[in-house]
């Protein structure tokens, strides 16, 4: 299994999306956030599998909310990034910055 310090590109995106949603993320919102911000359209199956994986690595956790008839009586999960998840994000951001440094001449300035 991947070491928790290194996450895949898509896993990182999911973590960031959950964070962006103020740690109050429902799966459906994560899906639209990914689409809106990153232009990543993924299937639900892929998203759920990724969430399971992040959960197993301890990078996110979730709380159960009982839900009403609009969900057919099925519960709802609210995801948030764990402290460990935040640490991993920071580590990989630092690593990325180091890798990017000095490449502006070759790659141009970032659009923002």
């Amino acid at each position, binding site marked *: 299994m991947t070491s928790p310090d290194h996450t895949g590109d898509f896993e990182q995106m999911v973590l960031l999306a959950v964070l962006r949603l103020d740690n109050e993320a*429902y*799966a*459906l919102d994560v899906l639209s956030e990914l689409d809106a911000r990153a232009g990543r359209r993924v*299937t*639900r*199956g*892929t998203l*759920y*599998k990724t969430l*399971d994986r992040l959960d197993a690595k301890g990078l996110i956790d979730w709380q*159960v909310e009982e*839900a009403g008839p*609009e*969900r*057919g*009586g*099925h*519960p*709802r*999960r609210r995801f948030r990034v764990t402290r460990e998840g935040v640490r991993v994000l920071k580590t990989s951001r630092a690593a990325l910055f180091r890798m990017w440094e000095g490449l502006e001449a070759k790659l141009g300035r970032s659009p923002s």
Partner: protein
Amino acid sequence: VKRATPPRWLESLLARCLPRDVRGRSILGDLHEAVGERYAAGDVRAPLWYFWHAIRIAVRYAPANLFRYSALEGTRMIGLAQDARYALRTIRRDLRFFLFAALIIGLGIGANTAVFSVMSPLVLRPLPFADSERLVWVALGTSGGMSSVTSRTSNLRDFRSMSQSFEALTGYYAFFEYSSYNLVGDGQPERLVGVDVAQDFLDVLRVRPMLGRNFTVEEGNWGGPSVAILTHAFWARRFAADPSIVGSSITLNNQPTEVIGVLPPSFDFASTFTPGSRVDFLRPFPISDETDRQGNTLAIIGRLEPGSTVEGAQAELDDINRRLQAEQPGRWGLGAVVSGLQEQIAGRFRSAMVVLAAAAAAVMLIACANLSNLLLARGPKRQKEMAVRSALGANRHRLVRQLLIESLLLALCGGLIGVFIAFAATRAVAGTSAISIPMLHAVSIDATALWFTLGVSVLAGLLLGIIPALQMSEGGEAAVIRESSRRAGESKRHTRLREVLVVAEMALACVLVVSGGLLLRSFMSVLDVDLGFQPAGTMSWRVDTSRNFESLTAANVFYDQLVANVQAVPGVEAVGLTDTMPLGRNREWGLRAKGVFYEEGQAPTFFPRMVDWRYLEAMRIPLLAGRYLNAYDIGESSPVLIINQAAAERLFPEQDAIGQIVFINGDQEWQVVGVVGNVRHQSLEEASGLEGYLPISQMGDWGALDMVVRSSVPPATLVQNVRAALRATDPTMPTGEFQTLNAVVDRAVSPRRFMLLLLGAFAATALLLAALGIYGVLSYSVTQRTAEIGIRMALGETEARVLGRVMGRTMALASVGVGIGALGSVVAARLIGSLLFGVRPTDALTFSAVMSILLLVSALAGFLPARRAARTDPMVALQSS
């Protein structure tokens, strides 16, 4: 929107694939919520959306969860899933055996699927027309050539107006292959085949042009605008499927013709009505007095009113014909025989198809018996495992189920292989135009065929698995205890079981090989038939000029020049012209000897052929009396003809036919100047009827000509030079249509060859499998009895005696199988009697040859284990036991 929740069954199915905890349930909830929003927004595709996403999620989660016991808890599936996983493990352990076995069963299944697919459009599926069961064929009579089954257009007109049983009646001009159209324009000049159809032809069949429109009433009138609807294949080939062709004009025989439509690919006229031929376009055929004068020309097709029956329609048409005859005593050519269109098209191939299906089923049974045997041979190995399982609490039912699941998996894997085999086979069949069997173009592996394959695979799995499963599972724990003892009685019983299976295989193989042998003999007798002409070294060209000749003389001059040019090509020995090549079309005209009175309906008919004076010699049709035609039999001289032997005997029994006068279709006198040998003109199997040869130089009544060229040079060189000679005569003449006469003969025997090849392949497979079976059984029993053989040899039995005993056993098994098979073959041969030609169903030569082959093959199969037994080293054998 009626319901705002996803389909319950789908949700519970999805739930089975998901983890059984809150994770899975929250996923269900998410989907539920999302689809609810879609329902609320009034999206009618909401259920589809749910289905699609449920599938995508299920695919991700199923591998981990579907076979988890938690997912199946409380269902009866749990044991089954265990068994399936256990079976997969067993298979993995012995993958090579599994693949070999799957290949064998795959051959059997492939044969069945292929035959099913060929049969399907012809026999099982309705014709590709809407409400096709109401379509009927209205023939003039039941026997004879095409002129005896086609009708005058006045019949169609009167049936249309007088009958109540039909929703509509239509027809097509059945002699369309006599006429021909030259397409001149972009690219090479090309000869096209067009069918003239009644204006409402497509409407009655409920076929809509894919592009453009159908014929209008005005276009269906005599002298109406010249229009054509292209067949899909021709449109795709010649015009690269260009939709803008509709509405444009093409030049056919120097006449501008408007393309008004394109037929859909699903309607292939030639493949449906005239298999083995080609049709490029449809044109309207007027149902008028002008076309009525052409005589019997129309193939009538009707659509019955809902609720009408073939019998009712028949009775009504009989009545109408009686009334018409009473009102118009001088009217000729009235008659109607109604039959289902499907029956008309597919009927004569049905028995052949049933035979093929039976043969494929037999191959399948042999393959099953073979695999049963292989599995039985593995019995002792597995029996220990079974005993352990049963000691651990599995009951026999569970063990049998376990083993059956294994054989089912085997058969399903075989089914997969079978689909590939069948796919390749049907691709080959559907792509050929050399076989004149209807609806072949529609042959494919479709959903029905796949369901069929699945069904056959399951059946095969049960069939091949049940005997080994029952045998291996018996005994239970006791088997372990008795493992050390030799279980002599049991072992003997199992050997007997396996021998019975081998005998059955041998018997079935014998039936198949005998049937194949009889068909082979029939095929050879057909090829041996005296054709009456010599096809070898002869080629034929379609020669159609777009010119309109002012007079018969002008036409004669043109064709004489053409023949002279071709004659000058190096290596050409003889050239002749005819409007009817052998083994293709047919027609009938009346023929009466002068001075003879014929009873009503008793007047003879003959098959007329328009030929030039060189044709008979070019074809090497032998002259029996009188003279051949010559260059002086032209328009101005008195009309002459040559008749065949059959016509001479019928018209002038015990007289000299030469110099006699006959009437053809009327009152003009024709003088018989020669008698030639009979020619097989309709098919190789049918004896010749009455035939006559009329000089084209005297008779202008022909549509298009074929030129036969006899030469000593190879076809490739000849083709180049002859084409050049034709172009020199007429630069716009299409020259692309030529064939050897041997190819014509080949096409005529193609259904028979098709049948023979398929049945031959089945028989060969059967023989191979049966030989494998014999080998397997003996090889196994030799291995089992190594110790016994060792003791015998230690006590002084010679190698020859050991060899002799094993071979004796082999031949005993083979003989019993072949004996039973021979009896079965007598029955089978009677069933295929209608397919035989020139050979009796009980042909002694075929039977004895086949039985010898089977015994010989068995001997070979038994020899290998026998030799191994004879070479047993007593010391080694005794030590190993």
